[in-house]
């Protein structure tokens, strides 16, 4: 934990807001899952969204990314209103998204997966691929292999790598640690920190609240589709209500 705490001082989030949702309402069918959720991510900032199961954390990311229609509220990316834009339009504006499951193309090779991640990119594919491979050296050696044969951790790495191909300014991560071994979780979080240190703002949805709070700058606690708490991640880590609500302390 101590090394992670020192890491926090290395990245200093900027003052400008990169991504902001305001009063987001969305849901499936007749049912609303989110009842007006607002979150803010500053430039180069890493923000966690935690909360109990069914709090609407993943739904929030899907709505931000245009996969679920926002019934009310707005999404702003770098000051521009992008509410209910199509994912391919958002990708071109610098937003990246890694879904929790099924986040690689299983029958495509690693290199083809990365190519698809950069589908809207017209030039500089080779350079970017090599940069991404430097961040994930494990993948570089297996670039011709089919993604379906990778282990869970490697898939997660590939999913991150795919999203990085367009060099997004804001990255949405949906439970990157889900169903991974503790060792793998540590590795994935190290990579996420590196990505953030390189200047990418990150909105991280996590079940693994302690880990998430220890690497993020700020955090929001959602419950029942509403904002419950927000603040400095380290303070929330020791907050009694968070403990009672969520950490099981």
């Amino acid at each position, binding site marked *: 934990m101590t090394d992670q705490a020192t890491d926090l001082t290395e990245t200093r989030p900027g003052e400008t807001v990169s991504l902001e949702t305001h009063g987001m309402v969305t849901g499936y069918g007749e049912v609303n899952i989110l009842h007006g959720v607002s979150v803010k991510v500053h430039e180069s900032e890493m923000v966690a969204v935690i909360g109990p199961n069914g709090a609407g954390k993943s739904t929030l990311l899907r709505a931000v990314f245009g996969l679920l229609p926002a019934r009310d509220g707005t999404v702003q990316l770098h000051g521009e209103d992008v509410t209910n834009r199509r994912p*391919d339009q958002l*990708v071109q504006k610098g937003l990246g998204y890694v879904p929790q499951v099924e986040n690689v193309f*299983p*029958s*495509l090779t690693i290199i*083809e997966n990365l*190519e*698809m991640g950069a*589908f*809207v990119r017209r030039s500089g594919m080779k350079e970017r691929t090599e940069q991404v491979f430097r961040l994930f050296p494990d993948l570089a050696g297996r670039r011709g292999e089919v993604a379906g044969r990778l282990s869970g951790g490697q898939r997660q790495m590939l999913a991150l790598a795919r999203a990085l191909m367009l060099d997004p300014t804001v990255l949405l991560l949906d439970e990157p640690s889900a169903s991974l071994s503790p060792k793998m979780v540590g590795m994935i979080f190290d990579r996420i920190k590196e990505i953030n240190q390189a200047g990418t703002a990150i909105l991280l949805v996590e079940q693994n609240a302690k880990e998430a709070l220890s690497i993020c700058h700020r955090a929001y606690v959602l419950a029942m589709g509403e904002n419950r708490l927000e603040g400095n991640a380290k303070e929330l880590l020791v907050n009694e209500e968070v403990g009672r609500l969520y950490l099981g302390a």
Partner: protein
Amino acid sequence: MATVQAQPLTRAEQFRDYRRAAGVWMAGPGLWVIIGAFLVWAMIAERDGVVTGVVIGAVFALGAVGITLIFAILKFGHFAHGDTMMLSAYLGFMFLTGTIAGEQQSDLVTILPVSTSDLPGATTDIWNFSFGYGLLAAMGLSAIATALFLVILNHLVYAPLLRRGSSVVTLSIASLGLALMIRSAMLMLWGSDPRFYSPGIRQAVDLPFGVRVLYDQLFILAIAFVMAAFLYFFLYRTRLGKAMRATSDNADLARVSGIDTERIVRWMWIVAGVLVAVAGVMLGLQAQLKPELGFIILLPLFAAAVLGGVGSPHGALVGGLLIGIIQEVAVTSGIIEPGYKFSVALIVLILVLLVRPRGLFGERA
């Protein structure tokens, strides 16, 4: 402590065990072994059947690839594919001769101001084939028209249904309805009388090992091979083809990656249309054009796609060839009457679904 007396297995239990073992074997290497053995036997005993089977199988293969691509990306069975193949054969006929049926269906009425046969030297036979370059031009025009037709069909029927979140059943039934409409349109436009591309004499050539084959059949094989090579190049070497495979793997993730999946779907219809049109004209070259043939051929097309593994393009190619061979060999060896030829595909379809539903190359069950 209670003891349980060991008892010999009953007949029913023995049968059950044998059946399970056989099932495991078929799901593993079994089907391959059976197919291999069949092919070896057929090559020795029924060489002529194999040759004709490969030729008609090449036609099935190109059609089945379309079915498998559509299934891989849109997840429904395109029942209008057989009739689309026949329509493309008729479109080829129309571009070649410039005619459709008149009031009497035996009369042909010219509707196009110029046809590909009118081009200078277009009807002079190429090499030893029974047709000139006019037919090739007509095939190209038919491919363009068929691709356009499928894109329009997608725009008017399938895309709106998909946007509405319709189920697989709705889409399949819609395609079945379209199949009926296409067939009726063909009957109206060209009548039920059989049509031919060329009255030219079909020359045969003797190949080694006592194989006798028509030059036209060699042409069909060559074209099918070229189309398969193009398809491979497209799917595995081009950006668009890779995006198509990505969309078939996981359409949501493709969208998340910034791929405009609706555009991919349009391209999928274009590829399927070109392949099915080439197959249709090949079919017309091999046999005669009849509107009902489109529906009959749907069965071998689906059998080929299922045998190869639905969703697998190379599986569909192999499946098409195999269905063609099995069907022709079943007839030449006297196992089945020629009139029941197309039922062979149904038998294969049922067997594959029973013993190995994922097909030869399919990933998922």
